[in-house]
């Protein structure tokens, strides 16, 4: 594995560093007998933007889903914002409150309006009064530039709009870390840009982001590090210019040659 200066510095700080948003050490996971994540070591500094790419089935989704415990890891340690993920349900709740996630298929709640989608967790998880929650929601809906859709249902919006709502919904909880799992893969080409623009805006504000995506333009523009995964392992990690200009590992070269034409 090739480490940049950043990673080396981050690792030197060790587990106790308050500078780290996410810390994965020797993480392993199996689905039955299938070893899906192998010895994952990853340190993400606060404010850092990471793009994760790799062939389908390489374990990218599984890895980032371990960070908010949508998947359980079986060996190794994961520390998110200073809280170690264990069986302790309280801690899982705490971490989920700090970590927002945006999915490939949006996962909006179709029976609730856009506004209700955004206020739901504020009201029920953060116990915020409804009025205040609606103000927060409108603030973020304005930020993703769809305040006028607040009273509609997700089924009435285009894919790009739905994904922006999903981003706003996560932002309402004021997360410290945002996870994106192929947020533009299910979108029609003309809608990719509006979602990426929203993500770039978020990145510029200093949000800690882990994005699984194959939008290499986005990676070049905002990523501090690009990570390439294959067969459940981190094969290569580097800052974007070096990563694209000078991939070292054979598999990375092959993968890049396939997606960059």
């Amino acid at each position, binding site marked *: 594995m090739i480490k940049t200066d950043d990673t080396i510095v981050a690792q030197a700080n060790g587990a106790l560093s308050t500078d780290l948003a996410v810390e994965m050490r020797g993480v392993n996971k199996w689905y039955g007998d299938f070893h899906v994540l192998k010895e994952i070591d990853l340190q993400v500094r606060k404010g850092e933007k990471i793009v994760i790419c790799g062939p389908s089935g390489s374990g990218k989704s599984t890895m980032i889903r371990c960070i908010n415990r949508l998947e359980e890891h079986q060996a190794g340690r994961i520390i998110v914002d200073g809280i170690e993920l264990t069986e302790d349900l309280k801690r899982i709740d705490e971490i989920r409150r700090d970590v927002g996630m945006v999915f490939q298929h949006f996962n909006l709640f179709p029976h609730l309006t856009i506004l209700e989608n955004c206020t739901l*967790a504020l009201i029920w998880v953060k116990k915020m009064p409804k009025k205040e929650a609606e103000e927060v929601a409108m603030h973020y809906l304005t930020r993703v530039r769809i305040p006028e859709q607040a009273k509609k249902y997700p089924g009435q919006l285009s894919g790009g709009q739905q994904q922006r709502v999903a981003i706003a919904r996560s932002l309402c909880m004021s997360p410290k870390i945002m996870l994106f799992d192929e947020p533009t893969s299910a979108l029609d080409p003309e809608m990719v840009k509006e979602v990426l623009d929203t993500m770039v805006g978020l990145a510029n504000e200093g949000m800690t982001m882990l994005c699984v995506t194959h939008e290499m333009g986005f990676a070049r523009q905002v990523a501090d590090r690009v990570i390439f995964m294959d067969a459940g392992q981190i094969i290569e990690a580097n800052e974007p210019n070096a990563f694209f200009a000078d991939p070292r590992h054979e598999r990375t070269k092959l993968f890049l040659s396939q997606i960059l034409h």
Partner: protein
Amino acid sequence: MTDATQHSGAYVRETLAEAREAPGRFFGPIAWMRQHLFGSVIDTLLTFLGVAIIAWLAWQVIDFAFLRAVWTGENGEVCRKEGAGACWPYVEAYWKQFVYGRYPIEERWRPTLVFALFAATLVPLAIPSVPYKRLNVFLFLVAFPVVSFFLLTGGVFGLVEVETTVWGGLLVTLIVALTGIVCSLPFGILLALGRRSKLPIIRILCIVFIEFWRGVPLITVLFMASNMLPLFMPAGMEVDKLLRALIGVALFTGAYLAETIRGGLQAIPKGQYEGAMALGLGYWQMMGLIVMPQALKMVIPGIVNSFISLFKDTTLVLIVSLFDLLGMIQASLADPIWISPVTGKTGYFVAAVTFWVFCFGMSRYSQWMERRLATGHKR
């Protein structure tokens, strides 16, 4: 223009085509009929045949219930004449029994008040635009049952005690149906969740429970509740017969509903759970706010189906000698004063119409609700 497209590869449109009206779409009732009823010779024949059958059936009913009907009389004599239709004086003499059963006459204002309270709390609940839904739900699910219980049984506040054995008619039908519906739904939801639980003990308990109740006919359940339950009870302890029937019906329907609801749960994509979990919702919040509302909405037709069947199955309480509407009607047929060839037909006609009105009402309301709850098109 066409030449250009045919003969060379390059083509640029010069004028944009305007949207035109779709061909062959005519509006108005005549056009509709021509299209749907008289589209071809066979269509036309079938239309006439269908209309003829409907007209014949409608005529039979109208003829029996109105044209040949006997409207006044002191006893069955008037209905015994040749060619008589419905015997309405008999219904007039008996309708209070159909509604209240053998509830003491001077106390009948109590069930009447209960009916009124029922309507007063249910109607605003059923109309979405009426405000104060929370209060309304409380009134309907907590206040109304408690008040009704004391009103009907009495023995407190100076009310004469009325044994459940004399309750009857529509009163019993509605009590059994309503309690069954209100209790079986939450029970079915819990069973459905339990059957999908990760905890093996809970899952197995729910499976055994559901399969037991689904495997036993309701008649058997009622028989067991009335004849076998006392054998297991400590001597001297008596559980009211009506209460036993209520519990039996609620558990029985609950088991069916559990499976219907489980079907709905299975149709909810995994992404909905993940979206909820990622936002930090706990299990009960996730189920109560995200999963159940969608699952229930999807299985409204199945749920209402169960409720309608429950409503009609209330007639089975007759076999444990509780007299519901049908039971009262049947009992009244033995009255020698009103015996005639048409008394039975009239009684059963009244029973059929009453049951149909309630069941059809439930069905229509649920269909309307389904349309109202539809939110945008699915992708």
